[in-house]
């Protein structure tokens, strides 16, 4: 059942983003930024967390889940460290993925044959 929910919620978020692309002049980069900001705001005010618990990867894997992870990390680090957490928390959950993206992205770019 969790797989069906993840498929449907993740699919709906992507379908909504596609609708925005179809009916506006925004680029995919704009839509990615918008969804991340939306996720960070909803994560910050605590709305995204119940959504994550219901939808699982359907809420986590779209970039809105990445945005909510930024805000969630900040809030938990503020509780632990105080004001410093406002800065370190951005990478508390997302840091692993970001460093992974840099490492794997570089490795792939070096290993892959350049295409024209």
């Amino acid at each position, binding site marked *: 059942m*969790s*797989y069906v929910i993840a*498929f449907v*919620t*993740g*699919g*709906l978020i*992507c*379908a909504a*983003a*596609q609708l925005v692309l*179809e009916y506006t002049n925004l680029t*995919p*980069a704009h*839509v*990615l*930024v918008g969804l*991340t*900001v939306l996720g*960070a*705001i909803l*994560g*910050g*005010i605590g709305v995204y967390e119940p959504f*994550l618990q219901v939808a*699982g*990867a*359907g809420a*986590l*894997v*779209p*970039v809105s*889940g*990445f*945005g909510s*992870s*930024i*805000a*969630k990390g900040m*809030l*938990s680090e*503020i*509780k632990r460290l105080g*004001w410093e957490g*406002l800065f370190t*928390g951005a990478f508390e*959950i997302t*840091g*692993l*993925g970001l460093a992974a*993206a*840099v490492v*794997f*992205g*570089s490795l792939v*770019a*070096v290993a*892959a044959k*350049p*295409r024209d």
Partner: protein
Amino acid sequence: MKPQEYQQLVKENQPPRHVWKNVLLAFLVGGAICLVGQAVLEFVSGVERTTDEAAAVTLAIMILIGSILTGLGIYDEIAEQGGAGAAVPITGFSNTITAAAMEFRREGFILGMGAKMFVIAGPVLVYGILSGFVVALIKAVVLGHF
């Protein structure tokens, strides 16, 4: 020709758009990627101690998958069909980083690959962090965490 007439002409000669087909494809491709993500999340949840750690590792594994598929040239084909369904999941975020690294490598490792790797992912990070910062700051002040 008046601007309005020109606009009309452009409209008439545009290729027909398959909006609902594209939306359906975005739904299917995005859903399929999240389905894979759910399998990863459930596997990782059995190994990691907290939900935050499980989320972090799941995101990293999806980023690895996106990166490899980009290197093999498969992600471009998925993106061609899936549109936002390929761009919106975190694999698409990873795709923008890897694709930029591959594309700009020919301009050198420092000012090419290094500088331009985050050409699309950068704004996502900047505005994600800024908006999270503002909301977390307000929440922490209101709740008296400082």
